[in-house]
């Protein structure tokens, strides 16, 4: 019995399919925490322009005494970009492995086995990645925002969602995010080995509830702009 000669922990982890999944689970967990914080921030839109813009300004000033202006924000961005790279790297690597594992497919289309969310992880992830690029160009840099970059965060948001197609794209993306979390959260728990036959139903339900709450929490903002609740 000869074990693979990979002795250091990075190559031992990255070298197996389960190791790659664990990297996806950890990075996915980072995204989930970020997305929840982001959603709570977004909901300040309902407290008016002053609260929302003050929050936006505050994000730039957290820990300024130690990290400088926007220092903490850039640290968070650095962590997120690293996590995105690792998450996508592992995902594409497993995707390629799956393609290789079945070079000849079935003639009779396979019946639907396993959840819809699980089956749409890969293309759902691609949609979310494309959306995030648009989202940063729109509301962070202001490149594709009608008001440009230097305006109030509140006004940029309203101006952006006043374009119905942007609001619609946003809603589609957060629904895709919801499906991604619905499977991803449960899958991460399973990857860490915390699932059991007894707990499985409860864990899946928990993941769907978290996913639904996040989807609603995000989608409610463009819906409020579209219906005129937020001006």
């Amino acid at each position: 019995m000869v074990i693979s000669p990979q002795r250091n922990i990075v190559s031992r982890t990255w070298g197996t399919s389960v190791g790659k999944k664990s990297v996806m689970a950890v990075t996915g967990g980072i995204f989930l925490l970020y997305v929840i914080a982001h959603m709570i921030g977004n909901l300040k839109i309902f407290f008016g322009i002053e609260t929302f813009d003050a929050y936006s300004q505050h994000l730039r000033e957290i820990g300024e005494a130690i990290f400088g202006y926007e220092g903490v924000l850039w640290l968070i961005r650095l962590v997120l970009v690293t996590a995105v790279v690792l998450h996508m790297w592992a995902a594409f690597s497993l995707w390629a492995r799956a393609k290789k594992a079945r070079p000849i497919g079935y003639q009779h289309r396979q019946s639907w086995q396993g959840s819809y969310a699980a089956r749409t992880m890969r293309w759902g992830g691609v949609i979310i990645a494309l959306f995030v690029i648009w989202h940063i160009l729109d509301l962070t840099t202001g490149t594709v925002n009608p008001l440009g970059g230097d305006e109030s965060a509140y006004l940029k948001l309203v101006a952006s969602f006043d374009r119905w197609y942007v609001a619609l794209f946003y809603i589609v993306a957060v629904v895709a995010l919801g499906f991604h979390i619905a499977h991803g959260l449960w899958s991460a728990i399973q990857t860490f080995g915390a699932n059991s036959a007894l707990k499985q139903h409860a864990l899946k339900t928990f993941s769907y509830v978290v996913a639904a709450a996040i989807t609603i929490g995000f989608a409610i903002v463009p819906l409020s702009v579209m219906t005129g609740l937020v001006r």
Partner: protein
Amino acid sequence: MKLTLRIWRQASPDAKGKMKKYVLDDVEPDMSFLEMLDVLNEKLVLDDEDPVSFDHDCREGICGSCAMVINGTAHGPQKNTTTCQLHMRHFADGDTIDIEPWRAKAFPVIKDLVTDRSAFDEIIKAGGYISVNTGSAPEAHAIPVDKVSADDAFDAATCIGCGACVAACPNGSSMLFTSAKVTHLGLLPQGQPERATRAINMLAKQDELDFGGCTNVGACHEVCPKGIPLASIAQLNHDVLGATLAGARSD
């Protein structure tokens, strides 16, 4: 019953295969799926045609030989049932039934519906055993096993190694099979000494043999004739990650 069958015919491993259509007029609802294929083959022999090759042995649902994908589902429409235990009463008169071999790079087609599943033997050889000195068997009650572990280990041990999990998996992964073995041995006292290296070595072998990676879709559990729980995979993940962090090695 009158049935139209569309069956994957492939003369040899390297030959190009295709779906071929056959019509059977005299199928009884009480026939098993394999008996229905026997009837077809008798007819083909009488017509001087090459009979359809398919694997079968015990025909009572415990050997794991009867591998075929029926209308896109491994082992056909009835849950927790092997193809040999599937009966024609689950189909309707006039149905068209598509029959294909397992599809995976690690399970190459030998002929028609017969695939080479020795990749599973390779995974077992990588760690699906316990090392003990042979001799007189010890007293069975000498090593206590708690009821829950005994039950869970037995549930995992019911895996017959048929390969349906691989056939159904959108990633072509053998994770349910490997995890059933790891769970079965890893929950029992006799399996403890090799528990960490077993998980790592069996997974490494599975990865090496061109099986895909698990993404927890759950299709494997849906088609598994023995209903191996998806949580077995969590057990494997747990053992692999624990062993990886602990730096387990077996040389």
